[in-house]
């Protein structure tokens, strides 16, 4: 089976994010970038297939600025076979990204396209469904497992308190929620091989995509309010009074009761 995983490079989850001077974006100087966590699960899901069936191929693609190349290298180091970088400014909107990806998909002709269910930076969850729409393929979300069956794939979805199993014909777009195992740690030979691999680069124009004006705009960004220090109630014998005071505080100050 042929997999194509679409990924996005995002600020690493360990980064302490700061709002940039313009007040509507984040300061990016000196921060660490990595593959968005759900995309990493998507890669792992595809690679698990490859572990079981060596004839499987796993390609990765991203649409983003030149630094996104590092994210593709990381995916190659994990064991993906090839990677494509579609260069585009950070500001290109989700629909245009989906169009560009659709052009790549049409060329590569995979059986299964996987995306993370959403990117961890803007959490929009737009590109995956938009890509399925642009391709006219079926799309299934919240995947945790994929198994090949006769004329298609079996897709496991996580739902509240359990899971559903769907089948779909290929080609299909799947949005990944989690993989059974944590995304693998690349082996050193994998890292070294990935360093030497060619990563072909395309731009939007070559894929026939002309970015339109963004349909949504970030107006302002603000850091969350500082967390205040907790309050400690002293127990000086009268437990009842203490409980009453706690209830009052939870009701009046914390407003949770």
């Amino acid at each position, binding site marked *: 089976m042929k997999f194509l995983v679409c990924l996005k490079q995002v600020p690493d989850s*360990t980064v302490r994010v700061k709002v940039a001077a313009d007040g509507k974006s984040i300061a990016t100087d000196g921060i660490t970038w990595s593959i968005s966590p759900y995309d990493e699960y998507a890669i792992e899901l595809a690679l698990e297939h490859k572990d079981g069936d060596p004839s499987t191929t796993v390609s990765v693609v991203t649409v983003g600025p030149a630094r996104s190349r590092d994210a593709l290298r990381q995916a190659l180091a994990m064991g993906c076979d090839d990677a494509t970088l579609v260069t585009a400014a950070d500001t290109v909107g989700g629909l245009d990204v989906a169009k560009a990806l659709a052009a790549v998909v049409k060329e590569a002709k995979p059986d299964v396209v996987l995306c993370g269910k959403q990117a961890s930076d803007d959490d929009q969850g737009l590109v995956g469904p938009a890509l399925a729409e642009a391709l006219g393929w079926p799309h299934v979300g919240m995947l945790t497992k994929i198994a090949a069956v006769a004329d298609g794939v079996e897709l496991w979805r996580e739902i509240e308190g359990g899971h559903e199993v769907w089948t779909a014909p290929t080609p299909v777009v799947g949005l990944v929620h989690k993989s059974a195992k944590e995304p693998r*740690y690349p082996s050193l030979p994998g890292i*070294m091989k990935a360093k030497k691999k060619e990563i072909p680069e395309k731009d939007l124009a070559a894929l026939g995509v002309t970015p339109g004006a963004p349909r949504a705009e970030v107006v302002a960004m603000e850091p969350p309010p500082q967390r205040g220090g907790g309050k400690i109630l002293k127990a000086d014998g009268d437990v009842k009074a203490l409980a009453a005071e706690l209830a009052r505080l939870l009701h009046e100050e914390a407003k949770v009761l």
Partner: protein
Amino acid sequence: MSPPTQGIWAIVLLVLTIAAAAVFGYRVLGLYRLLRLGRDESRVDQPWRRLRDEIVVYLGQRKLLKRPYYIRGVGHALIFWGFLVITWGSADLLLRGIVGWQLPFTDTAAYAWILDVFAVAVLVSVVVAVFRRAVLRPPRMHRVPEGYVILTLIGFLMLTLLVFESAAIAATRDELGQLLRVFPPVAAALAPLISTAAGPAIFAGAWWAHVVTILAFAVYLPRTKHLHIVTTLPNVFFRSSRPRGALQLIDDIENKETFGAANVRDFSWKQLLDGYTCTECGRCSDNCPALATGKTLDPQKIVLDIRDQLLREGPKLLADAKAETTAPAHWVATKPDELWACTTCAACVEACPVTIEHIDKIVDMRRSLTLMEGAAPPEAQRAMTNIERAGNPWGEARATRGDWAEGLGIPTFAEKPDAEYLYFVGCAASYDRRNQRVARALASILKSAGVSFAILGAAETCNGDPARRMGNEYLFQLQAQQNIETLNAAAVKKVITSCPHCFNTIANEYPQLGGNYEVVHALPLVKKLLAEKKLTLTGGAAAEIVAYHDPCYLGRHNGIYDAPRDVLDAVPGVTRAEIAPHNRERGFCCGAGGGRMWMEEKMGQRVNHRRVDQLLATKSGATKVASGCPYCLIMLEEGVGAKGVQESIKPVDVLELVAARLETS
């Protein structure tokens, strides 16, 4: 008396000796060829130090005479020294028997005396050793029949020696000049039991029995663990010249294709020689905190697994260089669980009488798992990813590394480029709330003593110790290079650390990558500041008993046992207690080294809980347990909490006790 090898008998002896030597040589050559299957590694630097080791460790039996093995150690030393004396005599017997040459000293009365006394000492030791095996049955010693065979051979050698010596006295009792000779005491005491007439026959019989036993011993030896009497000689000579705390560098890592050890060919020849040398005494296992708390790891088994696999697969590999060796996933005996349980505490290395290097083997196999297969436990992978991305194993934000120092007036190197010392804070003291207090304590001590220092703040990154010990040499080297670049750019010459792991890595491992600094752990520095009277402590706080816990990377890995104790003793009001017998070189690990801090511990008892058990068992009345390591502090905190004794005994860092008694001016 002249040897009973007149006429044809000299030829018989010659033939027997040649045959025995041939079998011995053939067997040793076979072992040598197997050894050569291993990876190349140069072990000939510092020849004088190596010769000194030979004298101290081999001839001096230094590593046998250790707590709690003094009695056994003395027993072994007696057998060994006896052996040396007797081997000289044996060589003389053979030479004289065949060609009539005599080795120096062997005809002196003094030598006869020494031989006589040693023969009895060895006999006694043999009896004790048999008693231990048969009756006392030490739990970890492999009790294979081989041990009895060897002991019987040794015992028989000593008996025959005494018999032919006394027979010689008996046979010559009427000769002129007897009265003038000084006889060895035991043989002389036995001689009256033998009649003059029977003397020559008994002499000849015992003499031949003795000589044949020597030859049998030589033939049998290469097949047994008793080969260690031969292999210890090269094994001690070729022991690692690295500081104990330094792991081996993988040189030119970017251009290598395989990493670590997945089969016998991946170990260096010295690692394989270790296998031949293991005496199966079990001392390493006796002292292993992982084994003691019910993990599957057993350091002796690691050494023997490698040896057994070499003996099993080696001949096939010799015959066909391309033959498949057992793949890592099917590593026959050693399982990943065993390897990941190691805290790299070095209790095994410390205990081993024949300088076997257990940690190197374990880390080599971890390297294969991590670097070749990406098969570290998930929590370890998470820690490594965190180091890669955030510069610390906890995955705290890189940018907030220096936040602990905010408002304390501690300059960064950028702000104070001429600072004498860099305080390399380390990940734990930078991010862990409990350990931030230790960093602040050290800062206040340094200020009080007028030491010129600065920190790197957010420019500091993990020193790489956890990554290296989890087998990720590549990540270690990236981290180390990054820090070395930062330190060199700031022209840092002297480094203070409050973490023994930072200390060990920067002092002992960074030089492998070209980072050479004068590194000092805070406790020896504080000791010096106290001695120089740059630091004065006042006795305001109440008197207390404080137990000292030896961190492995201060103690066993770097030999710093006394400085922390001296500092404790200098703190007004503090009475030091020891967690005996698990103190100093027998200190018991807290369970966090070797990257274990970030791995789950599901098997058996937790190592830190055992440590707290030991602490409580001393009933020293201690209300605090002090250490000099952030990992130990975290583990002890968790341990006393889990045992429900956090109200009666508080874990602290020695630095905190000092800082609490600084003279506030």
